[in-house]
């Protein structure tokens, strides 16, 4: 199939904070840089909507810097296979792009962790980040009531954002016990930026109940969610709502890195001090190396971009800041770790695999992901196990690190490669900035 070919020196996959930072420094160093993002926008998840509705100063600074850097952005481009070393295929609505790269920076971010509970498949039950992101792109929420539940500082940021979009936030229900959250909050003095950010959020959320140590046990409604029942382990109560925004922190989008053969360490993509993975020429920054948020991603992205541009010595000054953010990251992940009750929320008829409608009871008969998948088709649908696989890891402890192309559904035609022998390669496109 005909595909557009691009030769670049540094290819960055993901235009969130990590990818933007890496692309900026590499392009400013004179490298030919391309950035891919599967959405129509710059900014990834955490800076979603910043181009149309500026809200965060850091995001604005970086986006301006990116636009002046000379890096070329390919929007709505989904990386789906790596058929030969130094080659990456991306699918776009207009056709397949074939990239030849010398260095690859994986900045694919993270997605929210969804855990099954009765009623979680009702329309109106969404991830907190998901609802917030869509509200910035026109999803109507003004005047609607939402319960925000799950875990992580994201819940407060989302509640804040949704309130600013005119939603009535009935409750923010954080599963972590109050003591742990308080300890984390107290520890923020080490990260003053985060503390100020947190205090700002708390101020704007004045009047919104924020309860720790509680979690949803079921969502109910006829055609969509109408109420959610929560518990703190002792008391159970029900809140009426139009939306339930429920997510249990983050799952790194490791699939591209795993496809390329990058090794893991403690569930995250293993990188050295230059953000280099175990695969030559492949670097990784941001959430796939450990879910630590935007500030951490920015520092890691700059290190990766400099290393990719052959300027490793210039990366050294970032190491101390990165170490501090890693301490924040570790404290965050420890504070908001999942309580055991969350593994038992699903009833036997609660669906675990939403693409193939596979309930918990059907999965109970199996001892590992592969045999469960083979016999129940759990994970064989369009999401390729991203939703149910992450849940199964929490519910059953099943690992599912085997990844095959295509990384996302693509047209059957996109699976057909063009020949990529040397003599057929056309030298292409645009020098930076042209």
């Amino acid at each position: 199939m005909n595909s557009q070919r691009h030769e670049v020196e540094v290819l960055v996959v993901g235009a969130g904070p990590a990818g933007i930072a890496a692309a900026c420094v590499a392009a400013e160093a004179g490298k030919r840089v391309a950035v891919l993002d599967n959405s129509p926008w710059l900014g990834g998840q955490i800076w979603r909507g910043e181009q149309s509705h500026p809200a965060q100063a850091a995001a604005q600074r970086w986006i301006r810097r990116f636009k002046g850097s000379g890096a070329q952005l390919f929007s709505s481009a989904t990386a789906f296979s790596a058929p030969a070393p130094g080659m990456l295929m991306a699918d776009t609505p207009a056709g397949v792009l074939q990239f030849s790269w010398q260095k690859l920076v994986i900045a694919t971010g993270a997605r929210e962790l969804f855990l099954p509970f009765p009623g979680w498949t009702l329309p109106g039950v969404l991830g907190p980040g998901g609802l917030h992101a869509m509200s910035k792109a026109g999803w109507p929420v003004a005047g609607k009531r939402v319960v925000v539940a799950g875990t992580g500082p994201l819940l407060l940021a989302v509640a804040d954002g949704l309130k600013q979009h005119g939603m009535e936030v009935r409750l923010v229900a954080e599963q972590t016990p109050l003591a742990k959250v308080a300890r984390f909050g107290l520890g923020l003095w080490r990260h003053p930026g985060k503390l100020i950010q947190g205090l700002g959020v708390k101020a704007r959320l004045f009047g919104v109940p924020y309860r720790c140590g509680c979690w949803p046990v079921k969502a109910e409604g006829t055609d969509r969610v109408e109420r959610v029942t929560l518990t703190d382990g002792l008391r159970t109560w029900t809140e009426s709502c139009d939306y339930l925004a429920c997510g249990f922190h983050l799952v790194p989008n490791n699939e591209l890195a795993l496809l390329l053969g990058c090794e893991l360490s403690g569930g995250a993509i293993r990188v050295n001090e230059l953000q280099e993975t175990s695969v030559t020429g492949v670097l990784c920054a941001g959430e796939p190396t450990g879910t630590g948020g935007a500030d951490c991603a920015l520092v890691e992205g700059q290190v990766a971009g400099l290393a990719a541009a052959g300027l490793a010595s210039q990366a050294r000054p970032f190491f101390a800041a990165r170490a501090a953010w890693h301490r924040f990251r570790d404290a965050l992940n420890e504070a908001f770790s999942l309580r055991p009750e969350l593994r038992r929320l699903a009833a036997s008829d609660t669906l675990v695999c939403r693409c193939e409608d596979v309930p918990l009871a059907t999965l109970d008969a199996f001892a590992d992901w592969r045999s469960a998948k083979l016999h129940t088709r759990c994970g064989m649908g369009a999401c390729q196990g991203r939703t149910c696989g992450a849940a199964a890891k929490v519910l059953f402890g099943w690992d599912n690190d085997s990844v095959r192309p295509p990384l996302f559904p693509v047209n059957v035609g996109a699976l057909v490669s063009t020949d990529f022998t040397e003599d057929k390669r056309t030298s292409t496109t645009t020098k930076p900035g042209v």
Partner: protein
Amino acid sequence: MSAKPDILIVGAGIVGAACAAECARAGLSVLVLDRGPVGGGTTAAAMGHLVVMDDSPAQFALTSYSRRLWHQLAEQLPTHVDYDPCGTMWVAVDDQEMAEVRRKETFYRERGVKVEVLDAATLRKAEPNLRHDLVGGMRVSDDAVLYPPCAAGFLLEQARAAGAEIRTGVEARSLLPEGGVTLGDGARLSAGIVVNAAGPWSPALTPGLPVRQRKGHLVITDRYHGFVGHQIIELGYLKSAHAVTADSVAFNIQPRKNGQMLIGSSRQFDSEGTEINQPILDRMLRRAFEYLPTLNQLSALRCWTGYRAATPDKLPLIGPSLESDRVWLATGHEGLGITTSLATGRLLVDRLMSRPSEIPSEPYLPARLAKGGAAHD
């Protein structure tokens, strides 16, 4: 199972499962071992097409007998086996292939297999997404499709209900000529007879067995109900399956009950590993687009590979091995393992119990490949 089982089957794929079900039903005590999960080997990469094939009289006899057994079993199959009697549509691109269609029609009709020849216009009406200049086809309406790993699971449930024991995650390292296996950890399990049903890996247990690994590729699409109505195969499929050395592809597409479609097929010897082989995937898909021009715009969810167990004469090995009358074989089914699994189980048990089979079993005996047997040419 503390006592020595009558039958120990190595391989819990569709063939091992069918043998286990038949042996258990016949009152034999059965133990099945597999180093992986049920149906996790070749069965996991099989298309699940229940089809009569006429590459040779013996192949026809085995596939038609076994297809009949599937028809008899159909109403017992649970929902998740996804049995669907959608039928096969063989398609012809030119007059030469159409002549082959007519030859097949005569052959099948003489043997009581329901077939219907379609001209170009009727074919277009039956399968509107096929390219419009095909000259005709042949519908075999009693062919069907199912989901192989769950079919294997069902057969093993039947075996269990009749007293069989199944142990997954247990590797057999070698077979004992006196009947039994040595496991990966060195332990020995004795049995009256051990059956090698390990498919492409059967030569590791029976050294020198003339079974070669033949790699195939598959692609599955998202849901497109009604895009095709039958399992559609190009007539060239038999040439591809027939070829014993060259890499080959042949167009083959299967609609599943939920609307997803499986696209195949490819054949390669000597392609190591489970990774996708891009050049042959390209060939396979380009071939498919020649028949279904709009297929390239449908959404593909997954690609994967698998190995078939191929013998020199394209017939399986069913019966006592050459080395020992306590080591039996049920392997070498190439691309017809799902179809012929039930007949394999029957033929195996018939011979074990010294009772007559419904079809002659000699063509499938391992002894046929003894001295002067055809080498892979």
